[in-house]
């Protein structure tokens, strides 16, 4: 299931299939399909690029260039395998990323201790945070033992070495993975309940 917020603030539940018809609509410039495409792959590109690039501005530039090249390629000839749309988007993104990093004279992976650039938070990243989601996060945290809450906050808020955090809380890395896994599932369940409730209202 795929949930997202519409521009008018309402929630919608939908699952579109990436098939020949979808790619055809995209190629023909169908506004709704283009909006769905950029919304879905825009987030995936953001998650991928954030895992490798620390500059939000560069992330945003690469995302925009990726979309541009994908649309140009589709309009020129489409895809031989429409069901591989995701793989195609990723390959375009990788090409754009390597070109951008080469142009900037950077290594393909930024060092872990690279200085955080000044606050350049882009809209795409900021859009992930909403008051409603923060409330849901608080609800999820409230269901967790205090130690687990503190552990998660320490790992993702304080930029301390994760092994050091695990030693401090006397847990191993697998515990941390399972903890995040459970928190993520509770969060998604809460979002789904909320979306279903809003659709029913």
């Amino acid at each position, binding site marked *: *299931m*795929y949930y997202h917020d519409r521009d008018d603030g309402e929630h919608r539940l939908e*699952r579109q299939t990436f098939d020949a018809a979808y790619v055809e609509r995209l190629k023909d410039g169908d506004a709704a399909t283009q909006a769905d495409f950029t919304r*879905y*792959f825009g*987030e*995936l590109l953001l*998650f*991928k690029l954030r*895992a490798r690039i620390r500059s939000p501005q560069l992330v945003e530039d690469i995302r925009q260039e990726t979309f541009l090249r994908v649309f140009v390629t589709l309009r020129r000839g489409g895809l031989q395998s429409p069901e*591989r749309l*995701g*793989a195609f*988007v*990723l390959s375009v993104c990788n090409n754009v990323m390597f070109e951008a990093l080469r142009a900037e004279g950077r290594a393909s*992976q930024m060092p872990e201790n690279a200085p955080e650039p000044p606050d350049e938070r882009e809209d795409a*990243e900021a859009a*992930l*945070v*909403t008051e409603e*989601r*923060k409330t*849901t*996060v*608080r609800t*999820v*945290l409230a269901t967790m033992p205090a130690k687990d809450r503190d552990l*998660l*906050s320490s*790992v*993702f*808020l304080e930029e301390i070495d*994760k092994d050091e955090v695990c030693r401090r809380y006397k847990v191993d*890395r697998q515990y*941390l*993975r*399972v903890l*995040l*896994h459970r*928190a*993520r*599932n509770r*969060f*998604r369940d809460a*979002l789904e309940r909320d979306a279903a409730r809003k659709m029913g209202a």
Partner: protein
Amino acid sequence: MTHANAMKLYAVERYLLGEMPENEQDAFEQHYFECRECADDLRAASIFLENLKQVAAEPVPAPRPEPQRDWFAWMRWAPLQPVLTGLLLVILGYQSFYRIPNLERTAAAPVAQAHVDFGVRGEGDAVRAQHGELLQIETNLTPSLWASRYHVVVRPAGGGKAVEFDIDGPPRDRLSDFKFKVPQPLGPGDYVLTLHWAPDKSESTRLRVEIQ
């Protein structure tokens, strides 16, 4: 990477925790760009973490002080208010119009002192006082009459309501300084004052009192 592998290896969590080597990272990206289910998992986890960072960075509100146990809360129970108010008025009235004036009259009353030798004079001789006076008995106790506490009964000779009170006995080495006061003025008439050895009151000595 297959979907089953991704699930089994906690790929989403390891990806976000930065635990994957680059080749595995590439493989997982190849996978989640084509797998809706893993993409949704990654999306949920990423949104959770992004909002968690915001929530965790918020200033922690100062802890509210633990509420003190309010032992008197029951007194604020609304239905009890008229009862408590009435009770308070009764107590105030009793103190203001009866108890305090009586104490004031007693304190202001003249004192008639009478020296008595218990066990020597017996009931034969009477102690005399004027109506309205407080009777104060002074005595030399014999060692055989000593007790740490006495119970005193002043009963009208013709019958009626007696005045009763308790007094502490004197120290053993100061038997000659023993004195006590009848706490309220007596009306005119003859009385019998009985000094009981507390607590069993089995032994006593008596004294006649005449109020004129």
